[in-house]
């Protein structure tokens, strides 16, 4: 069986064979120093330009060899998902497995082709290294083990979201996005590396890593609990949030970011409204403080503040001019993006905690600010931005020229509007898309086809609207004309005829001020029976009354507030779109901010008395 027949080979002369080795190259010879092989796992290299300080390397490190160290000179920008943290390696612990390389979301870490580090006793600190692209010894050794497609452990691809196709959705206001099924949600949640960039970027600092992890574990109530720690507008934000979290997501640097918004929506939809109410009520004060707070406007900022204050034991009354709560989320966002039933769920949770909303009460008309002040310990203004701005081009004051906010509100409230056969929308933001798509649906219902033209100053690459909105608008047959500046709205006695535009050469001047320049030779006329302006909104502050307006401080037309949302009057706070600009999640964050400030104010006053 054996390859050698050892019994016969033994002999007296055998040892002499070894003399032959004098003529051969030695087996054990010393080698010249050489760089390690191309895949070698040597010392760490870290490209500081690419590294975002997400600390995923630290999380996957088997040996806790990585410490994230703050490097003050480096840029830090939570909105872009960049921290000035960089990994420092303890080579007394590192085992050179290179999992940090394979799981690095950006691909900044690599290992070098360097073999040796040694030192005398007094230099033992040299084993603790903050590597940059030059590695441990500052000498440029080539990259060894680096990110490769083979070895990448980051799941770059997002789970696809099912959406209604344009033919199905164009003639109705049914929700477009279908939502994840449980399997998709778990897979999507599993992509998260728990870096917390989303948490830092979110205006209200939602605990996204925690609720994503809870979804992954199948603990949906746990996810809802995490969501309600910071956001009582969870159904709303799960659908229409501007998702700055996803912009900051570290996985998004090389792939598609985690669908954080859709995951929130999934968790909220999956838990019954009764359980959500029970979870939201956890931690509610068991006492009443006897303090009364009035909130003007039942939008996201006002209701969030109400939610927080009621949980602290204060009595909160919200005064709302409309017939239903939600503010701009109900009357500004079309139902195909945010169904009213879902908004109702958010509002129900808040009212179930004891927040009282007086509908149909217009402050300034039905009740004055002075009354509110005298009957309450604190008052919050969350009146939103309800006045559409006008382009003020010739013809803009014609009655067939509408403001987007007014139209959207009427459609949402069920007020019958005259659906124009053709329409031109001025503006390139999300509100412009909302009104264009709303008109398109109404036209499709009434006339069977879509004749909506949207013109914006910006070119398509710089549109303010979400790319998804632009894509879906085009799919729905809306004509989008970019870089067009409105010059005149063409009107006859009772009818609008269209819009005359010039091509935009530039929008801002050298100082960054708004000063559009046009190519007058490129003139177009866009015919339309209705022209809609969607170029921004302002707050309608008439309700304050002249006296109050005079005593308040203003900053370029906006109410001036401190960092807690408090005005210069000690009983009055302001929050939401009217101070932050239009954004649901910023409004929620603002609501928390003023609630905390008011709670502190009310508590302090208690002690002093």
């Amino acid at each position, binding site marked *: 069986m054996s390859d050698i027949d050892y019994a016969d080979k033994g002999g007296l002369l055998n040892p002499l064979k070894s003399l032959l080795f004098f003529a051969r190259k030695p087996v*054990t010879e010393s080698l010249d120093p050489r760089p390690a092989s*191309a895949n*070698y796992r040597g010392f760490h290299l870290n490209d500081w330009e690419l590294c975002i300080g997400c600390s995923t390397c630290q999380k996957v490190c088997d040996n806790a060899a990585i410490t994230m160290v703050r490097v003050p000179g480096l840029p830090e920008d939570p909105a872009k998902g960049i921290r000035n943290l960089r990994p420092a390696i303890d080579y007394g612990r590192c*085992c050179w497995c290179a*999992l940090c390389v394979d799981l690095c979301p950006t691909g900044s870490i690599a290992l070098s082709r360097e073999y040796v580090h040694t030192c005398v006793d007094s230099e033992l600190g040299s084993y603790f290294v903050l590597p940059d692209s030059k590695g441990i010894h500052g000498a440029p050794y080539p990259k060894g083990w680096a990110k490769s497609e083979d070895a990448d*452990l980051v799941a770059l691809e997002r789970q696809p979201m099912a959406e209604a196709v344009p033919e199905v959705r164009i003639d109705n206001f049914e929700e477009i996005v279908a939502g994840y099924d449980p399997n998709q949600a778990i897979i999507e949640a*599993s992509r*998260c590396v728990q870096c917390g960039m989303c948490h830092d970027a979110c205006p209200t600092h939602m605990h996204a890593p925690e609720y994503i992890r809870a979804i992954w574990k199948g603990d949906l109530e746990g996810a809802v609990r995490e969501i309600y720690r910071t956001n009582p507008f969870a159904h709303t934000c799960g659908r229409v949030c501007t998702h700055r979290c996803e912009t900051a997501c570290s996985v998004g640097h090389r792939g598609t970011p985690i669908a954080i918004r859709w995951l929130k929506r999934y968790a909220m939809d999956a838990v019954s409204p009764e359980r959500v109410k029970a979870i939201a009520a956890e931690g509610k004060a068991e006492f009443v403080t006897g303090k009364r707070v009035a909130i003007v406007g039942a939008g996201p900022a006002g209701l969030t503040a109400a939610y927080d204050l009621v949980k602290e034991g204060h009595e909160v009354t919200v005064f709302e001019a409309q017939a239903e709560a939600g503010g701009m989320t109900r009357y500004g966002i079309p139902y195909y993006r945010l169904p009213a039933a879902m908004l109702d769920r958010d509002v129900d949770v808040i009212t179930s905690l004891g927040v009282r909303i007086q509908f149909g009460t217009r402050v300034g008309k039905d009740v004055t600010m002075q009354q509110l002040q005298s009957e309450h310990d604190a008052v919050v203004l969350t009146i939103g931005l309800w006045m559409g701005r006008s382009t003020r081009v010739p013809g803009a004051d014609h009655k067939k020229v509408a403001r987007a906010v007014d139209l959207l509100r009427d459609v949402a409230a069920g007020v019958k509007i005259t659906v124009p056969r053709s329409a031109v929308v001025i503006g390139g933001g999300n509100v412009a898309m909302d009104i264009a798509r709303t008109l398109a649906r109404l036209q499709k219902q009434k006339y069977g086809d879509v004749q909506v033209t949207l013109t914006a100053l910006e070119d398509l690459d710089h549109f303010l609207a979400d790319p998804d909105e632009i894509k879906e608008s085009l799919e729905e047959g809306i004509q989008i004309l970019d870089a067009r500046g409105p010059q005149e709205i063409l009107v006859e006695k009772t009818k609008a005829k269209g819009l005359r535009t010039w091509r935009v050469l530039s929008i801002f001047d050298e100082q960054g001020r708004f000063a559009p320049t046009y190519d007058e030779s490129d003139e177009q006329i866009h015919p339309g029976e209705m022209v809609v302006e969607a170029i921004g909104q302002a707050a309608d502050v008439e309700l304050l009354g002249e006296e109050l307006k005079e005593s308040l401080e203003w900053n370029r037309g906006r109410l001036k507030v401190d960092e807690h949302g408090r005005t210069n009057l000690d009983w009055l706070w302001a929050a939401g779109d009217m101070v932050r600009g239009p954004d649901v999640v910023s409004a929620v964050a603002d609501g928390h901010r003023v609630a905390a400030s008011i709670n502190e104010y009310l508590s302090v006053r208690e002690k002093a008395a």
Partner: protein
Amino acid sequence: MRPENYEARRHPPSHEYELNIGPNHPGIEGNYAFKLRLHGDRVIEGRADAGYLHRGFEKLMEGRLWIQNLAITPRICVPDPAPMEVSYVLAVEDLCGLEVPVRAQWLRVLQLELSRIAAHLFTFGGHAATTGMYTPMFWGVADRDLILDLFEEMCGGRVYSIYNIPGGVRRDLPEGFIERVAKTMDYIESRLPDYDNLLFTNQVFVKRARDCGPIDQQQALEWGVTGPNLRACGLQFDVRRDDPYLVYDQIDFEVPTEQAGDALARALVRRSELKQSIRIVRQVLAHLPQIPGPIRCPIPNPLAWNVPAGSTYTRVESSKGELAWYVVSNGSERPYRTHVRGPSQMHAVQVLEKLSVGCRIEDVAQIMFSLDACPPEVDR
């Protein structure tokens, strides 16, 4: 490891004395003690005393993510790390139901067989050293280094390759690697006659090794002997052939045996296995170019990876015998329990204790090395 080793013992009769071999001893692959009771130079009793290399890996693994354990597994047995890695990932794959791409399976076989060659070169060199012959050891270690060069290129690490990952392997082969492996195989094959002359037919070695520490078939089965030690007793069992894993069922190789069951027979089985492993590597090299990627199936994010609940026992044939992981998952991100079935546990404790009785003091180290017992794997 054993309480009785630390208890005060009755004073031995005046004609007996005690001797510690290890925990530092050139005849032992790692830190491992063997306590002998001697009468003259005859061993009356041998007591294995492990624990000097205990790092608590099995327990440690319960606290780490499934993927973080990859870095621990090869450290269990330093001279032959590949089987540890492969059997662990096979266990995880079995629990997860992952389909490993064919190319990855062939790459794993390549790694396993290269590792086996390296381990055997190391072992017979060490075996020779225990009989006072140091040249084979230098040669064995020098030639093993050529394999480590290949590992450096293929896996990124010379010793702890950490090449496998549940679902496949971490890297494809570098450019021109197949030719370089082929060249190294040719060289090692050309060295076999030298080794034969220097060691396997060298009467100094043959006469020392023959009849040293014999095991008969009955004993081998009772004591849980596996691998080359089992085959040296004439029992032809090899996990690769009899319970094939990866693509071993598509590979042509023989399972060499010897009959005598002594130290010489064990050395000769390893010598024959060197040739078989070279044969397997050549088949892999011939196959690989025709097998397209990928080298890994899609796997979840390692930071969020629950392995389905269950338990599994995955065995492979290491250079030292049957090596297996028993892995239990309770469906969480970390193993609930892992246990290594290492061949050295049997060989270095119960077999060595039995074989050493009655032999002469100078043969104890040889018996241990001929069993190819690996102390870090006993302790783990």
